[in-house]
């Protein structure tokens, strides 16, 4: 959390955090930097929302890139959609300090709903040829590519479970499946990965 606070302070536009802080909001910032920024953004402060974007877009893009099977353009589209939705729905966020989890569910919903509509068809068609390259310095390219080559459902569950820190109950709710199906898909994904990487 300390690291997060430092990152927000550095990444946010000059003075945004301070402006977002009223005297009453300061204790909230001490415990969670998102709360004051969310409150300011709700009042229409675009700079505060920019600070939220700076704090959360990095980890969210990584999740979305993997959910998209290594399609950077699609992941960036989802990232934009998620933040635009978040801006429009900020009033629906009951606990401003819970912005991170709320945003994650929102973004995953964006990604999964597009998957459900069948707009992405490229995965598994020519996996070797696509060989996605992560948009970050990659220490384990083989594993990244193996994850990208997993079948959609198995990859989604694996990414949400291992790389988004969601439990089976929440994954099941987000994907509209039974928790048992989520566990089975995770097992399938792990088995496939071990086969591909073994």
């Amino acid at each position, binding site marked *: 959390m300390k690291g997060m606070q430092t990152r927000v302070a550095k990444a946010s536009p000059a003075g945004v955090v301070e402006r977002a802080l009223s005297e009453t909001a300061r204790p909230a910032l001490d415990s969670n930097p998102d709360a004051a920024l969310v409150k300011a953004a709700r009042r*229409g402060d*675009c700079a505060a*929302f*920019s600070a939220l*974007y700076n704090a959360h*877009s*990095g*980890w969210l*893009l*990584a999740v979305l*890139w993997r959910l998209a099977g290594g399609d950077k353009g699609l992941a*960036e589209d989802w*990232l*934009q959609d998620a*933040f*635009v939705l978040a*801006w*429009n729905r900020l009033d629906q966020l009951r606990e401003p300090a819970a912005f991170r989890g709320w945003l994650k569910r929102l973004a995953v919903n964006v990604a999964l709903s597009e998957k459900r509509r069948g707009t992405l068809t490229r995965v598994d068609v020519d996996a070797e040829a696509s060989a996605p390259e*992560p*948009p*970050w*310095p*990659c*220490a*384990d390219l083989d*594993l*990244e590519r193996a994850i990208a080559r997993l079948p959609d459902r198995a990859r989604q569950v694996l990414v949400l479970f*291992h*790389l988004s820190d969601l439990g089976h109950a929440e994954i099941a709710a987000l994907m509209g499946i039974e928790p048992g199906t989520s566990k089975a898909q995770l097992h399938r994904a*792990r088995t496939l*990965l*071990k*086969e591909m*990487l*073994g």
Partner: protein
Amino acid sequence: MTTENSKKIDSRMDDAELDRRLGALTRTAEPVPANWAAIERRIGQRRWRHLMPAGMAAAAVLTGVALVVSQIAPAPETAGTVARVMRAEVQAMRASAPETPAVSEVNSPTALMAAWQENQAAIDQLEQALDRDPDNRLLLDFLTEARIRQAELARFLVRSDGREQPPNDERSINL
């Protein structure tokens, strides 16, 4: 278990190794600046869209006020805004007030009765207008003045020779 199967299993990565490699994966990326620029552009548009319903609602309210005002008295054709219509209405109503003769200047019982009926009609109109616009302080002030005038007219009618009595109207008594 065959030797081939055994070799296949041995060659597989074990769960602990998979977990280790999954745990070591990069968790953050650096989005390109164009992403935020696109988001900012989109939320900027949305902000204007959010303002539009509020603007339309305000316009509807103003239109409603204008309609109420126009029913009380026709607005001048030159009035371009609701505020101007309202001001014109106030001026018209205030300008008409001195034309009403003072109660003490109405001498005959017939004239008193006519004034009473005319004033009662004004009270009825003001009450109808207040039903449509209950928060209109100006209308309330005029209604109060009209009721006071009505009470004075009733008092003068009773003092006159008694040949004519004002109708028994509760509204003119209940000030």
